């Protein structure tokens, strides 16, 4: 199934001026654990969907109390730099939507 079908919400936002954080929230602990344990969401798989080096994916964190997975990535450039088109980092999550989860 695609990640967008399993998650109740999937969003992105700046975490500070140099990083993006993606929050993938599920409606049950079971679904959350399934995705976390599927091995589908890794720094390598995320980097591949954005065409970036794996070093740009800073961390992937499972947040048990919220049934949520957080993916952290460096921004392309600092927020508000010349040529900025997404100063809040709010529209960077689409490549994760159709990530296949076994």
């Amino acid at each position, binding site marked *: 199934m695609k990640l967008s079908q399993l998650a109740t919400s999937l969003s992105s936002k700046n975490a500070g001026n140099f990083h993006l954080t993606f929050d993938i929230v599920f409606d049950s602990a079971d679904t959350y654990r399934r995705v976390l344990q599927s091995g589908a969401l890794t720094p390598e798989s995320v980097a591949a969907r*954005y065409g970036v080096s794996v070093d740009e994916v800073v961390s992937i964190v499972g947040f048990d109390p919220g049934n949520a997975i957080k993916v952290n990535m460096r921004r392309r450039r600092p927020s508000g730099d010349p040529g900025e088109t997404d100063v809040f980092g709010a529209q960077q999550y689409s490549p994760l939507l159709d990530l296949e989860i076994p």
Partner: protein
Amino acid sequence: MSHAHSTLAQSSVLCASGSLGLTPFHSESFWAGIERRPDVVAADAGSGDIGPFYLGSGHWYNLPEWEEQDLVRMLKGARSCGAKMIVGSAGGAGLDQAVDLYHEIIARATRREGLGPIKVARIYSEVSRDWLKQRLDRAVPLGAPWPLTADVVDETRRAVAMIGIEPYLRALDKGADVIIAGRSCDDVLFAAHPVWLGLDRGLSLHMGKCIECGPLVATPPLQRESVMGTVFVDGFVVEPLHPGMRCTPASVTGHTLYERLDPYLQAGPGGAVDMTEVSYEAVGDRAVRVTGSTWVGSPDYRVKVEGAGRVGARKVVIFGFRDPVAIAHIDEILDDIRGEVKRIVGSDGWQLHFSVYGRDAIMGDRDLKAHEIGREIAVLAQAIAPEASTATRIAKLVKYGSLRAQYSRSGAKGGGAALPGDEVLTPDQESYRWTIDHLVTVADPFECCRVEFETVA
């Protein structure tokens, strides 16, 4: 004026607005909160989210009338129930000038409405270039991937330290009724009073983080509504004041994820809030009780410093294409335009950014589906140069070049771009960039700020 609640060992904090002055907060839920006679009426007025321009340039962020409306409403509410009023990161960027502006607004309203006398504490947290240059060896990069050097400081127009809780505690110690602060960590202005009463720092700071964005901790997150956080000896409770909203464990944990890299650890000056053992439990159907947050102190006191520097003046042209041949050849069109700019203006000393909406404007080279172009594209062209005259020349060449675009190599007849108007747009915002995003170790919390007191009659 005295507060007879220390025996009850609790502190209630009404967050009037998730972002003071941005747009006016709604009054019904605010006054519903005031009816509960909170100990504090507070709001965070700033964020790094807004980009480097406001910090670097000193340009006002919010509309003056909305800034005043929110502040005066908070002041009246606080005075009506004997609550402290606390505002942090004044003006968006937290500059000294905004602390002074807020003070002026508060003082005027106090006199006009007969709300005095009130004791006002002003906390200033701008740091100068000299201050930074004296501390280069005590600075480490936080978000910025470069070290803090004298050159980086020279490129910086303005910088602020994100102060911790101690300056607020001093203000409360000295009997302040109203605290107006420059750039601050967003949790400390809500945590100050509970901590001052002796309640747990970890719980208080976590509560502050929960309510500082206002409605985002509740569901649905109706905009501009007030929320309340109450710290007890062994936990804290958050709840919204609007009857159509509620806090649930999911809404509170959802907000714990917001805008941070680590949902288990919140670092701040002097330590961190450890949230690995936190429980979130529903209280009734619209409040949540949180327990288990603990403060872990660190030996060093480090403040985050934000700094921004000017890149140049900015002129903008927007043009679009609907012709599929033009769209297919957009890179050649833009290369031709850039070539013409180089020919006329020279190769150096300017930047020209083309963002192609409908292709990859939003994600740039991270958009692996950029080839799936739509029927229509728009190009946002931003010309940046130290002098406005150069930026204007470049923008005019872009505008002209878009109208005379050559893309009929395949034999099809081509037309010029669609422009909303024959104009170069001049945004108020010049181009700035973040220069400083570093942690600086200080000997004590007051090395990077100053606190002043004034009684307004």
